[in-house]
């Protein structure tokens, strides 16, 4: 890939935060819709929940949990940077957020399968 002004850790971390935020926001209405089936069509909800046993869906769920975790920890890093006294190790913190998120989502994945 051609080198541009973008190729550095904090930009990557920004991109990840944006992608995860967007992903979560797009997923959210579906999530709400499915849950509300409990209200309207419980049998379809059950169908969906069975569907969730499908391994492919498990992988998707892993993505979701990872997205949620990285968005949260990444967001907390940003909040800390903005509101707590400045710290110079933003790169390290961003990497830590990534690592923790990965850990959590892998845990989730392993538990799920």
């Amino acid at each position, binding site marked *: 890939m051609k080198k541009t002004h973008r190729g550095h850790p*904090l930009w990557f971390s920004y991109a990840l935060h944006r992608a995860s935020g967007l992903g979560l926001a797009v997923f959210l209405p579906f999530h709400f819709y499915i849950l509300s089936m409990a209200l309207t069509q419980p049998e379809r909800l059950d169908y969906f929940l069975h569907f969730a046993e499908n391994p492919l869906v498990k992988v998707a769920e892993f993505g979701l949990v990872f997205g949620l975790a990285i968005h949260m920890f990444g967001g907390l890093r940003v909040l800390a940077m*903005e509101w707590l006294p400045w710290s110079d190790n*933003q790169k390290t913190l961003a990497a830590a957020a990534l690592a923790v998120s990965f850990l959590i989502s892998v845990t989730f994945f392993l538990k799920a399968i």
Partner: protein
Amino acid sequence: MSDSVKLMDVAIWRGDATGGAYEHFEVPAQESQTILDVVSWIQQNQDANLTYRYACRVGMCGSCAMMVNGTPRWTCRTHVKKVLDGNKLTVAPLRNLPVIKDLATDMDPFFDKWVEAEGVHHPSKTRDDAIELIDPKSSARVEANTGIECINCSICYAACDTVAGNTDYLGPAALQRSWTLYNDARDADKQGILDAVSGTGGCHNCHSQGSCAVHCPNDLNPMKAIAGLKRATAMSFLKNGR
């Protein structure tokens, strides 16, 4: 060094506000040679019509910045060896600013925003007063000093994707200037500064991409300055509602 002169393949963006394209030139490589030297050589020897801008040639005036192989750089202080990609160089006008011609951009929007961000001293004293005693080690002064060597080259402005997407965004350099002033004990309008950076184009649009800090040729950190402004404005908002 070999006897035969090595030729570099240099692609230069040519055009104006209405559009343009890259043109290729063959430029002899030299031992000591900056990107600015390459561009000048082309204008002086191959294409008399090539336009670019420079003044100080030593990294003080911030007028020679261009996109070099995709990244914004001060061309007078960028040695060719540092950026040469195989045998190729690609030079384009600085990103995020309107092009006047070829490699020269219109920097007015950058400076308009500088002023819009209240990037100008608000005096609390006059020439008839003594010079204020200021402890150089006080934390506010130390903070103010960190951003003071900005040469307004607009490299950070070019590196920032938020600037690219959000035309109102004041951008890293202007905001860094506001932060410097906010920390300057001599400035008489701190609230005015906070107000100026709290509007729709203000510091809150920054996504902490950090490209500003990565590319600043003077190793300044506008991202840090902007974080400072966010902190100060948030405190002010919680306290005074603005």
